[in-house]
């Protein structure tokens, strides 16, 4: 069981805060929307990821526990 970052693209309005707080897993596309690296979070990144989730103004960022399948 591992944890990945996931974006709800419907809720996301491209504030870009997540990419600032978690650049190890999130970069922005040309329009300012987050492109998420699907690799599991390492323990060191966990706190940064939680802060990014809390900072999202539209609550569009979430942490998802993964077993084998990757959500899209």
């Amino acid at each position, binding site marked *: 069981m591992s944890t990945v970052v996931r974006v709800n*693209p*419907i809720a996301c309005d491209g504030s870009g805060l997540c990419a600032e707080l978690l650049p190890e897993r999130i970069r922005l596309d040309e329009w300012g*929307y987050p492109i998420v690296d699907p690799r599991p979070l390492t323990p060191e990144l966990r706190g940064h990821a939680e802060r990014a989730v809390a900072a999202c103004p539209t609550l569009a960022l979430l942490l998802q526990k993964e077993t084998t399948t990757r*959500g899209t």
Partner: protein
Amino acid sequence: MSSASAAVAPEAGLPRLFAGVRRDGLPLGLGAHAATHGPLPSPRGLIELVTAGGLRGRGGGGFPAGRKLAAVAGARRRPVVVANGAEGEPVSFKDKLLLRRAPHLVLDGAALAAAAVGAREVVVALDRSAGEEIGVVSAALDERRDRGLSWRLAVVPTGFVTGEETALLSALVGRDPKPTFTPPRPFERGLRGAPTLVQNVETLAHVALIARHGPDWFRALGTRQEPGSALFTVFGAVARPGVYEAAFGTPIRALVEQAGGVRGSAGAFLIGGFFGSWVDPAAAQGLSVLDADLARAGAALGAGAVVVLPAAACGLDQSARVARYLAEESAGQCGPCVHGLAALAGALETLASGHGDSRRDALRWLEQVRGRGACRHPDGAARFVESSLEVFAGEVELHLQGRCSGRRGEFIPTGRSR
């Protein structure tokens, strides 16, 4: 569409779904339906039969029907069944034609699926473009006496994404027909929170036949991996555009022959509809309607639409039109889909008009839209644009020199008049 015809296929073992349909185009009434297919069988063991038959969803996604049934049957709450007849793709008519000719086969499948998963409510969902079918299904429902089952016919707005499961469920409760973020998937929490089996109408018709004849009968056509038969909309530059029934594995050439053959000469084949891929005529000759086969050409069957583009049409111009349509049909919810599809359509339009070389931009944008939506709309549109750039690469070069090998105009309908 009026020219759609339920032709008798030359293959042995067909027609299945169109067995016994009337030559005058009227629907099979309940009596004639029962005389053709036999009475409604018991739902006992249905999920196992459908799973053993290897039936996959015919709405475009191809998800194994047995697994979906089992997932809904295993839910804690009483489930609901939705027969999905929202067919928003401008080049697909097979669901509408099936409902118009053999409505009770679809309704049998829905009733059996409901009994198998323990549902007492079935919603038959059609979109507004299905004018005639709404009347046919309504009359068919009046004929039926399914014990312990309540039917509802729901008419939802027409749109390319309306048939997407979660968008359809939104429409059914009066919200905009737009996809929702998943999970939860409909089988977990769907209509009014109930576990919901959303199944394409053609899929349900196959369920009705598997329940009667068994999985071995179903597997007598098709291949081991892709068993059975399906309905295909054959459209464009063919003598008799329409809906045809064929086994999986039928050569594209034979399917097009059923539709009277290519009218004039073909410029390209669009296989799998607007989420599909262009294939050049020479390559299409060696392909069959089988995903395993089409994958070699980068194509997939989707909901089974095959469009023949006449050689006289400019493929690049057609592609730009379809790409613009797909951009406009975005539900408008997800940033990468809204911006990315508009950018991609613009890139194809720039190439088509000879105003510049936008190929590098297009390739970069393709990478930025795939997998970035709440639904698969951006992925399907990206597949289409990518294949346009590949198959019409020569045409792009011509346009960059200010020339064009064909004509412009709407050879492929995009339904913008709706």
